[in-house]
Each structure stands twice: as structure tokens, then as C-alpha cells.
């Protein structure tokens, strides 16, 4: 008895949250909840962002200088802290995306033969 709601959700791999946050912010400034929703929506609800980890991650990225933040007002008139990609953040995103692709390809190569045998 399977419903659509029970489809498997994947917890994010260590380190991938940073990449996804940077990627999300390419489309413009967004607040924390907005970032989490965007990641969830764009992954067809497969990737689940732990809200508790989100903010420390944002904090970390801000500390690296890849994003910057300022308080603003949300769509429904709530005060919220909006994050924006910096120049170095864009460079970092390009760099990390490249790294990610390489890694996925490499992991794929490792996994393929095993599947052949099985």
C-alpha cells in the first residue's frame, strides 16, 4: 500500500547543503526558509533540508564570505534575513559544481562494474 506521500526522502550528504544553498541563491536573494523550500521543490521533494542544520550552514557560508546577508521584509510582511551570493560565492559555486560533477562521474565509474556483475 504505497502512496505518493511515502516516497523516499534522502537526507543530505555532508557538504552538499552548502553547494545547494549557493546554487539556490543564483536566482536572487532569499531568506532561510525560502532556501529550504526551494531546495525541496527543485528536488521534487526528494531532498529534505533539516532546518536545524540550515542556519549554521548559512552562518558558515557567510563566514567564508561567499554569501552576505541583510534583514528585509518577506512576501507576507515578515521581517526576515535575506542572503545574497557574493562574487567569491559565485566563483566558489562554479568551482564546487565542477568538483561535484567530477565526483559523481567518479563514483559512477566505481559503481557501474559492480552492477554489471550483479
Amino acid at each position, binding site marked *: 500500500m504505497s502512496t505518493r506521500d511515502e516516497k523516499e526522502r534522502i537526507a543530505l550528504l555532508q557538504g552538499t547543503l552548502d553547494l545547494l544553498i549557493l546554487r539556490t541563491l543564483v536566482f536572487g536573494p532569499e*531568506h532561510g*526558509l525560502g532556501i529550504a523550500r526551494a531546495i525541496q521543490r527543485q528536488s521534487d521533494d526528494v531532498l529534505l533540508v533539516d*532546518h536545524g*542544520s540550515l542556519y*549554521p550552514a548559512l552562518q*558558515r557560508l557567510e563566514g567564508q564570505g561567499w554569501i552576505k546577508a541583510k534583514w528585509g521584509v*518577506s512576501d507576507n510582511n*515578515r521581517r*526576515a534575513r535575506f542572503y545574497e551570493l557574493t562574487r567569491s560565492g559565485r566563483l566558489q559555486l562554479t568551482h564546487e559544481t565542477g568538483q561535484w560533477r567530477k565526483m559523481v562521474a567518479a563514483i559512477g565509474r566505481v559503481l557501474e562494474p559492480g552492477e554489471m556483475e550483479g
Partner: protein
Amino acid sequence: MFRRPRRMSDFSAEVQSHIEMETDRLQAEGMDASAARAQAIREFGNRAASEERFFESSPASVVEGVARDLRYGSRVLRKSPAFTLVAVLSLALGIGANTAIFQLVDAVRLRMLPVKNPDQLVQVRLSSMNKVRGSRIGRNTLTYPIWNEIRDRQQALSGIFAWSSSAYDLATAGEPRFIQGLVVSGGFFSSLGLEPKLGRLLQEADDTPGCGFPGAVISYAFWQREYGGQPGAVGSKLNLNRHPVEIIGVTSPGFFGMEVGRSFDVAVPVCTQGALYGRDLKSLGTIWWMTVMGRLKPGWTLPRASSYFQSLSPSVFQISLPANYPPVSMKDYLALQLVAEPAGQGVSDLREVYSEPLYLLLAIAGMVLLIACANLANLMLARASTREREITVRLAIGASRGRLVRQLMVETLLISTAGASLGLVAAQVLSRLLVSLLSTQGNMVFVNLDRDWRIFAFAGALAVLTAVLFGLAPALRSTRTGSGDVLKTGDRGTTASREGFGLRRLLVVVQVALSLVLVVGALLFSGTLNNLLSAETGFRQEGVLIARVAFGALGLPKERIGGFRQDLLERLRAIPGVAAAGDTDNVPISGNSTSNAFWMEGQLQSQARECMRSNIGPGYFDALQIPLLAGRFIDPRDTQTSSRVAVVNEAFARELMGGANPVGKHLWVEATPSEPATSYEIVGMVRNTKYIELREHFPPIVYQAQSQNPIAEPADAFLIRSSLPMDALTPAVRAALTGAAPGIRYKFQLFETSIRDTLVQERLMASLSSAFGILAGVLAAIGLYGVMAYLVTRRRNEIGIRMALGAGRREIVGMVLRESAILLGSGLVAGAVLSRFATASVASLLFGLKATDLRSLLGAAGLLALVAFAASYVPARRAANLDPNTALRQE
């Protein structure tokens, strides 16, 4: 790039806005307000953990991190003010006491003199003063003729100078007002590189033979005290021993003199000495009173200078040999050796007497601080167990252990730094108190207590050391908790605390052991003081007033001095209420002594024995109530013209005559600078008395008649026994003295006080070691109480079960007391072993008991056991009063 770190409150606001927006969204989807809010919060997860991770992950340099730890730490400490207060105050007290004692050690032992390049200063002195004859004034002093020779011959030192200290009287009549004076050679101030604050300092040109009173230099402190710092002081006249002397200058504020423990008020050139003292010491080769110092010339080292002065010695002593030097001692004089010693720290009697006690007190205070640290460590462990959950949560969500230890250590350092800062303030008060304990009526101790870098370094080191001692183990221990376990248990976080509890027990055992050592020490030192106070002196010191009288200023001819003295005695005896009065040149137990070699008629001079001697007048034995055992006392029949007589004590008869009755026999006194070898008839024998100090065995003493003394000294001490209260007696004595001669000078002191004042060091050790001993005992009791109370709380369940199974209150009390007895017992055994080693080092300071005194050890153990029992009885009672039902239900 420096950015202000983001505040936690800003972060919290962001989280809050997140939750509100989520609530909005859920409400928009049709949830009702409260459910939406609940779900938003639930979805967010652990907010505290998130905040913690914010805290952990914030970008921070080490400096920023520590700054944040400091803020966090001070917030944590502000949240528990009671803990913080107790911790800071006990550290302030402990560090304050240690720093105060260290300030004295620093001032007395470590500091250099406040002069230019003190490390170049050397003192020229004898390798040993044991064999010199004559009067020795001060430690390591030389005679003026020797100083003359050294100055004219030596090549090793530049700017060689000599000085001597003495008291001057400021009063114009009546009771003296003594100030500290220096006589200095002309090069004194220039060689030390000192500058005047005002006017000018003494120079070579001021110090010419027969100079009269060319002027005096006063110290900055004296200028402030006596003249309120008025510039008009320079040029005005000062009365020194009733001679008006012009003040020519004031020294700079930092210079207090050449002696540590004594400050100088006035300095005059050495050429003034004869006129000032009324007796010129400069021509005398048997008065040892000058301290000689100089600066090493470039290229000279101390060893080279020392061997140079040794090679110079034969010619110096050959030329300076005094004509009246006792013939038997001439060979010793010619063999004297000069050496050079470093003198950058000045000279100090205080240093000689108090070095050992001060280091000992520092060790004692250090142990008290250790005990206090053990208590704090215990407190920290107790706190750690209440903070176990906080720490476990933080560890669980990824805080590194090092990070947590750092934060806990920053908290600890905050406490210890606050304690040390307060301690530095307390030390200023305590060290002054200590110095005032060292001072007596006759000896005002001055010690430079200005704080130098060493004091701050010491307090700083103590702050770090104590933080490590009481903070590190608890910090390491509490962050080692296996994560998760604590979260699962109830409110009484007991995980891993078996280990933690073991540490707390160990701390208490250490505390008991250390306090036993301190209490044993306290008992040994108070026992010593008591033994000395009740020591048999051989005389009765109670009810005796000493009047030290000087009548040199009267200008009496030598032959009239004896008669004047006799007149004074009669006037004193005539005072109603005076039972007896006698005089002596040497008040017993005053620190002064004269001795000489004596042998019996018929013996060889080589069989001579060193004995103490006093010149006394009639009435002396009555005044001190020293009983006559055979023959007669010295009496008015003994005069300058009658045959020479002496009274001896039992010890003399025993040691020189094998205990035979000495009366009627003749003794010989070795030649002195003032008298050739002379034979005296022994006319009486008296009971043994102490002579120099209370600690000694009864020495052999020879009493000679003051009236037959070849040196007619215009000074004497009158001992007046009376039943009158002192405030009635002193005016009567004053009237009698001024009645004999208005210009007479005198000084009063109670004999009892004078003897007690010789016990300053013993009293200091007894009172301080007792204070520290009590403190140690109380601290250990608090430690024990804490651990026992904790034990009762921890074993509430077990106690409940025992009670439910039928254990009575007595069994429960017994159980708790047994636990504490084990801790106490282990501590006492360890302490007993420890005190064996520790007390061995104090043996030389004790009197009338041994360092291994069993009674002191048992007494100390008994006292501590009593205190420990009291401290553990309270928790034991609480355990016995537990209601088994509640105890068992409370999980």
C-alpha cells in the same frame, strides 16, 4: 578582514522569523493557528542545538573565539553568583596571603638596592668575625683604622665608601625621640649614583677631619614626615643629639638607605661622628662599626677582587694593629682575611633572621591555597555534573572536546584572574600587617613594599596555576562523558560520575592530609612560643621597669660618674612603692652581650673558658630577685679603690670548678682593650639565669662591680622593681631622674615587654601558622561536607531501600559516618607521613619540643577528626531523616 562577530540574539531572531513564516504558510494551507505553530516548531527541530551549532560554526579566529568564550563564561558566572562569589573570594584570600608573604620575600631577599647599577656593588669584609676582639656594632663591620688602610691602598674598586647606622636623638631634653641616622664617608652618595631631590648631598669635601657639623642630608620620607615636604627645610637646623645641624639636602624618594628592614632619616659625614656621639670611634682599633663598600672597576670580577683583598690583608692588618689589642689575640688579628662579597642587595639583619621563616610561611600559605583549590575543584566537579546535560548536548551535536575544554578553562581563568586581582589588593593590606607584626617598640621595621614586576608575575602565575589545579581536571572529566547516556537518564546525571566521585574523594583525602601537616605545624609553633614564654629565666621579670639612662651630655668628669650613678640609685629607691633598684650595663635577654675568657687561679690561661659578663651595681640581684646561694652580693663597699670582686653563677662553679663552692677563690679575666689581665676575688654565688636569649641553656656568668669598671661609661640601665602601676611609676621615676640632673636622657621599657619583644619571630610563626592551620582545617571540613552531602544525595535510592528493608536511623547515620571516617583516616595517615618530612625542616625553629612531637601529631589528628565528624554529621542526619517512600519514588 575584521568583522564584528554576529550576535546570538540576531541568530535567534532569524530562527524566530523562520518559524513565523512557516506558521504563516501552514495556516495558509488551512491549519489552525496553534497547530500550525506547533508543527513549525517541530519541523525546525532542536532550536537549542541549532543555536549551539551556530555558536560552534561561527567563523572565529582564536582571539575572537576566546573573546566569545569570555563573554559566554562571564554570563555563566553571573548566572550563578553564589558559586562565583565563593570561588573568587576564597582564591582572593589564598592568593592574597601568598602574595603578601611573597612581597616580603621579594623585599627582603630578591630586590636590589634602589641605587645606580646595584649589581656592581661589593662589600669588603672579614671572612669571619669570630676571632675579633672589642665591640662589634652591626654585622660584618670593620674598624675605622682598617677602613682607612683599605681606602688608601686598594685598587680593585672605584668609588669606595663606608657607613654606619645609629640612632640619633631629636629631643632637646627629657625622653628621647630617636630617628635612624647614618654616618657616611664623603664618597657615599656620589658612589651610589644618587641625586638630591632638593639642595645637595654630602660630598668628599664635607668629610674632612675635625669638620664639626658641616651639615646633614635627610631622607625624602623624613622630609615629608617632619617638614611636610616644605622646601624651607633645606637650610634650617635640626637637633641631633642636642647639636644643631644644618639640613643641606633631601635624597630622592626611592632611596631608603643601605639596610633592608630599616630606613634612614638623617645622614651626616663620618667626620661629625665624634662630636655627635660624644665619643670618637675613629681612632679606636677595637670598635667594629663601619660597613665598607665600593664598585668593581671595569674588568674586575668578584672572585678576582676577593682574592685581591685577601692578598692585601696582611699589610692592612699589620699597619692597623691597635696598640691596646689584647696580646693573646694579636696573632688572630694579624691573620684576619678581607674578602669581597656582592652587596647589591644591601645588608640586612632582617634577611638573616627571617629568610627561613618567610620561605616556610610561603610554603604554608601555598598549602592553604592548594587546599582551597581542592575545594574549588570539588565545586567545579559538582557544577560539572549539573551541567552534564548541557555539555553532552553540545558534544552530541558536534562541538569538539577541545573547544569545550577551552571554554570551561576560560571560565576557570575568569574566576582565578578575578581572585588574583582581588588578592593583589588584599596583599597590600596583609603585607603591611605582616611588617607591623615584625616591628617592636625598640625596632621599627621598614620594608619597601612597592610592588615590582615580580609581585605581579607571582600573582599572575598563581592565577594560572590555580586555574589549572582546580579547573583542568574537572573540565577534562566532564567533557569525557560518553554522549547519549546522560540524555537518557533522569535528572540526576550520574553517568561517569563514579569516576568523578572517586576524584572528589581523592581531593578530600589530599585536603585532610595537607591540613594535618599545617595543624601539626601550628601546634609545634604555638608550643614553641608557649615553652619560651614559660621558660625558666632564673629571675622574675614581672613588675620591673627598665630606665635606660644616658648622661654623657652632662659632661661629668670620669671620676664623678660612679658617684652620680650611686646618687641616681638612691633617688630611685626613695620613690614610695619601689621595692628595689639596681643597675647594669647589660640587661638580660636584650640581645646585647659581653663575654670574655676566664680561668681560675692556679689554672693555665690555656684552660680559660669563654663566659658571659655583666657589670652591675648593688641592688641588681634584689631588683631581679635572683637568689644568693653562697657568700654575698656586690655592695657599696666595692669601690674603685677596694680589691676587685666578682659574683658568679652556679653554671660558672660547675663548669670551671667542678661544682665546688667558689666563694673566696680567685678568677682571672683575660686582658681586654681597656684592662690588662686581672685577678678577681669571688665573693658570692647566685642562681643560674638566662643571659642572651630564652632559648639558651644557663650560661656561666661573671658579675663584676660597675663601680670597679675601668671604662666609666656615662650610660646605664636601671632596673626598678615596684608594685606600683606603670603609669604611676614612670612619672615618679622621671621626676627622680630630672631631679638629679635636668639634662639627663632616659628611655623607659617594661622588662617583661623587652623580653617578649625578643620573641617576635616565634610569635609571628605561631600566630600565622595557627591562622593558616585553622583556615586549612575549615577548608578541609567544607570539602568533606560537600563530598558527604553529595554522597547522600547520590545514594538516596540505596538509603531508601535500606530503610525499607528495616535499617534504622542509627544504621544510616553510621553508614554515612563510616564513609567519612574512611576518607578522614586515609587523609590522616597520608598527612602523618607527610608531616614527618615537612616538620623536619622546622626543627631549628622549635624550642622545648621535637619536630616529631607525638602529642602535637595526635592533637592535630584529634582536632581534625572532631571537625570532620561535625562536618559529616549534618549530611548523615539528613540521610537518616529521608522518607523511604519519597526516596524510592524519586527516580
